[in-house]
């Protein structure tokens, strides 16, 4: 492997808010991302994802350790690093609502030192790419949330970045928009760009990333392939059910792969920890005339516990 696109060595960041105890947001994080990879940074709220993205984006200094983007130090060589980066974060901030989508892109084109001609061409191309052509000349304040997010992505691409940092770029998007967005992210990787995608959404991490780093309370828990992650996710399911009697629940409790059944006012939650068991349980519930059945994914915490346990067993 040549120079990694992103190289993080023993990076730590401690915040020292006034009149409050210090917060260790990142604790000795090391990670290398090869060029052309979509790397997921998966962790619950407060895990330190944004802190890491900010340090890599040169807007926050680490307390210790170092990080490089394409070989350039993010603390000392900001001049070399900044033109290489595209930054996209979720939410509706970071755009000028009174300008049109096209004007926003032209504005950032100027900041990324494009000539007027380059700006015009790139802007048009990006507008088409993110599907904003019809609304490009309307003010951003009239855009839906999903449109603003797409404009954000286009904004992040104005400088033709080789390395993209996406911090929860699909928060608040409807599922369809989020899916299209993910397709776009995959296209960007196919063009040879390196992407660091911070998210707390396990399915997002599993579906678009080449590798996923799990982070919790500032520490790297594991770097996994999305397959491993996917197996864990699909193995652990929860089934919330209503309208079945205690006898049926008792029967289900005895099935292999069912790890627990908890009854709660009128319904029950069944937890499953083996692939395939979900299907058996669902079949049984439908036969028993359940009035409502809903499956949901395990929480991130549960996946963490499981991944750590699995590794414990391997040792």
């Amino acid at each position, binding site marked *: 492997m040549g120079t990694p696109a992103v190289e993080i060595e023993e990076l730590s*960041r401690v*915040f020292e808010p006034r009149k409050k105890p210090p917060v260790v947001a990142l604790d000795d994080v090391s990670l290398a991302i090869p060029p052309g990879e979509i790397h997921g940074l998966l962790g619950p709220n407060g895990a330190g994802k*944004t*802190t890491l993205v*900010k340090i890599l*984006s*040169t*807007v*926050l*200094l680490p307390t210790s350790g170092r990080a490089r983007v394409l070989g350039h130090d993010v603390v000392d060589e900001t*001049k070399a690093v*900044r*033109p290489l*980066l595209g*930054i996209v*974060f*979720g*939410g*509706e*901030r*970071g*755009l*000028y*609502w*009174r*300008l049109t989508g096209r*004007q926003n892109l*032209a*504005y*950032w084109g*100027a*900041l*990324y*030192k494009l*000539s*007027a001609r380059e700006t015009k061409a790139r802007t048009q191309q990006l507008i088409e790419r993110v599907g904003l052509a019809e609304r490009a000349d309307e003010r951003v304040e009239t855009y839906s949330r999903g449109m603003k997010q797409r404009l954000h992505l286009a*904004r992040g691409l104005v*400088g033709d970045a080789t390395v993209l940092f996406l*911090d*929860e770029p699909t*928060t608040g998007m409807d599922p369809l928009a989020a899916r299209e967005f993910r397709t776009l992210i995959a296209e960007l990787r196919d063009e040879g760009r390196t992407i660091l995608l911070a998210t707390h959404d396990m399915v997002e991490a599993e579906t678009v990333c080449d590798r996923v780093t799990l982070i919790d309370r500032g520490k790297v828990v594991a770097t996994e392939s999305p397959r491993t992650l996917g197996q864990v996710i699909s193995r652990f399911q929860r089934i919330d059910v209503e309208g079945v009697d205690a006898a049926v629940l008792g029967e289900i409790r005895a099935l292999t792969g069912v790890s627990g059944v908890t009854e709660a006012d009128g319904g029950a939650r069944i937890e499953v920890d083996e692939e395939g068991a979900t299907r058996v349980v669902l079949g049984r519930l439908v036969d028993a005339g359940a009035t409502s059945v809903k499956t949901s994914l395990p929480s991130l915490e549960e996946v963490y516990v499981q991944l750590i346990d699995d590794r414990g067993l391997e040792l």
Partner: protein
Amino acid sequence: MTALATTVNVMHHAFRAGLADYRAIFTWKSWLAGWMVRVIAQVAFFALLGERIGDDQKTFYLLVGNSILVAALTGVFSLNMTTAERWAGTLPLLVASPSSPIIVFSARGSYLAVDGALSALAALFIAGPMFGMDLPWPRVVAVVPLTALVALASYCFGTFLAGIVFRFRSINSLVVLTTHVSLMAACGVNVPLSYYPDALEWFSRVLPVTNGLLAIRGVLDGADPATILGDAALEAVVAVGWMTLALASFNQLASRGRRDGSLDYGA
């Protein structure tokens, strides 16, 4: 592109972004019917006051002072660009871009300097003749660049304040109010500088109105060119000084933000 060309390009776009904010508030019609009418009424009020309490000289003194004050008060409003909440979301992106955010901040509110100069000149050239003031042609032409200079200096001063208010958002309105009162009271708008103690004159001279206003009064009163040019030069120095401090304060804001983590997307 050359460094200069890219800088100018960024300033141009920042100016446009600022103007778009402004155009969302005012149309040409509402600008004329709302803002200009208010400005002229305000200047006329002070002129009328002068007529009541004194002679023509007092009237014209107040009329000129309060017209030029409009340029200053408008320019100083550039400090409000910090309260435009979306800045909270763009600052880290500006810092992370290959261009310096201070280029943006130096131009973001400059439409206010243009607006201030136009408003002040309109007030002077409309209210002046209304009160029978003699505007000596062609000397009076020199008032145009001098008013622009006052507006620019005030804009620089407002931008400096913006850098301060950025960190202490809660004091924004207090700063606006204090600034307006100081400019009105301490810059020779309603009473001559000689009225103040010496120490205050120094303070007055570093404020963005005083020197330019003296130059403008000089033009209208037929003072000798050397005095006028001297005051105008001082005004320019004040403008450059405040802009230098403004840029330094934004630089400071960015590097401090990198250290303490206050550069927030505010998502």
